């Protein structure tokens, strides 16, 4: 039941976040699906004993790969999918607890939690980066223009 509710809500929040960024209508559902699957990975890995950081990293890698693949399929920039997809992974609750500890004067706990937040945020960044790099083996990182000589291809 919880899983089903989570799937629906993560799909919904990714779609809603896509709408905030005005993504084209035809990419809306695909973006939501990316967010939903990412949330599923993010929640199911800790069941098998993975740390939160690893789960976030794996989910972010998935988001990156999926959005690159979709961008080739649908011929739209991949940002359309990845921005909305990372929403369910945002370390909101640790960031909140960090602020709560600082406000309560518990600086030691605050710093511990701040590091935890940074690890989660770094895991998102690293995952997105790894996905981009893996994908670039197939596609080349960006079709960097080269003056004149490379124009022929």
């Amino acid at each position: 039941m919880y899983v089903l509710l989570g799937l629906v809500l993560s799909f919904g929040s990714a779609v809603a976040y896509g709408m905030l960024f005005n993504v084209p209508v035809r990419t809306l559902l695909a973006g939501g699906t990316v967010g939903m699957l990412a949330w599923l990975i993010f929640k199911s890995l800790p069941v098998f004993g993975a740390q939160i950081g690893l789960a976030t990293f794996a989910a972010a890698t998935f988001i990156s790969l999926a959005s690159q693949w979709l961008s080739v399929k649908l011929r739209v920039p991949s940002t359309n999918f990845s921005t909305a997809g990372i929403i369910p992974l945002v370390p909101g609750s640790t960031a909140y607890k960090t602020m709560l500890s600082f406000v309560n004067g518990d600086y030691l706990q605050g710093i511990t939690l701040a590091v935890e937040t940074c690890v989660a945020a770094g895991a998102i960044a690293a995952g997105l980066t790894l996905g981009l790099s893996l994908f670039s083996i197939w596609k080349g990182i960006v079709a960097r223009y080269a003056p004149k000589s490379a124009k022929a291809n």
Partner: protein
Amino acid sequence: MMTANNHVMETCILAGRIMLKSGAETYRVEDTMAHIAQAAGMDDVYSSVTPSTIILSYCDGDQDHTRMIRVFRGSVDLNKVTLVNQVSRHYVSGQLTLEQAHQHLLEIEQKKPQYPAWMQSLASGFASGSFTVLLGGTIWDMIPTMIAGMLVNKSIVYIEQVMRVKFFTEFLAGCVGGFFVLLMYHLFPDLHLNYMLIGTMLPLFPGMAVTNSLRDILAGDLVAGMSRGVEAVLTALSIAVATALVLSL
């Protein structure tokens, strides 16, 4: 009077300006402009883009042309980025003439956002509400958070019109949503303040800046990537301060 050469420059700069304003990565803007100019038969095409300026130069026969413009930030609109991308792809593959491409770009620039304002604030509210439940809140927590999310979205729009200070806008919008949630919590003590507060701040999360900064850094645009990264960090900090302010009351 507009010569053919001028027209190439106009089209490239227009495409670049729309894309950069609508929140495209800088390497995408550079590529798009360079592709259009090369397809128009210009030599030695170089473009250099930072989050606030565009410089394009090319050589037409024995004449050099360079143009630089300053771009002011607009609202994020990925639909426009996608459309400009399509126009440039069609022009490069020869399906559009330069004249047609320019016309299309002018139309794209005038386009209103795809989703009307009410739909966007509804989406903002829904994102907030569902994030609250995803983190462990109950369905009852969802309702006040949805209203708070809509308030946050509306207040960003209004505050931005009054004062053009980016990070302060987000801080104030976070405060508005946060105080609403705090009020709800005092009225109905059964709600979970922590989950509601996290959900309320979600629409302010700098998702665009984070992804764009990473993609720019990987594409080798270190300056653009760093400046977008700093933007993301500052936004996150202003949200954090807003949260702290609400919590300390």
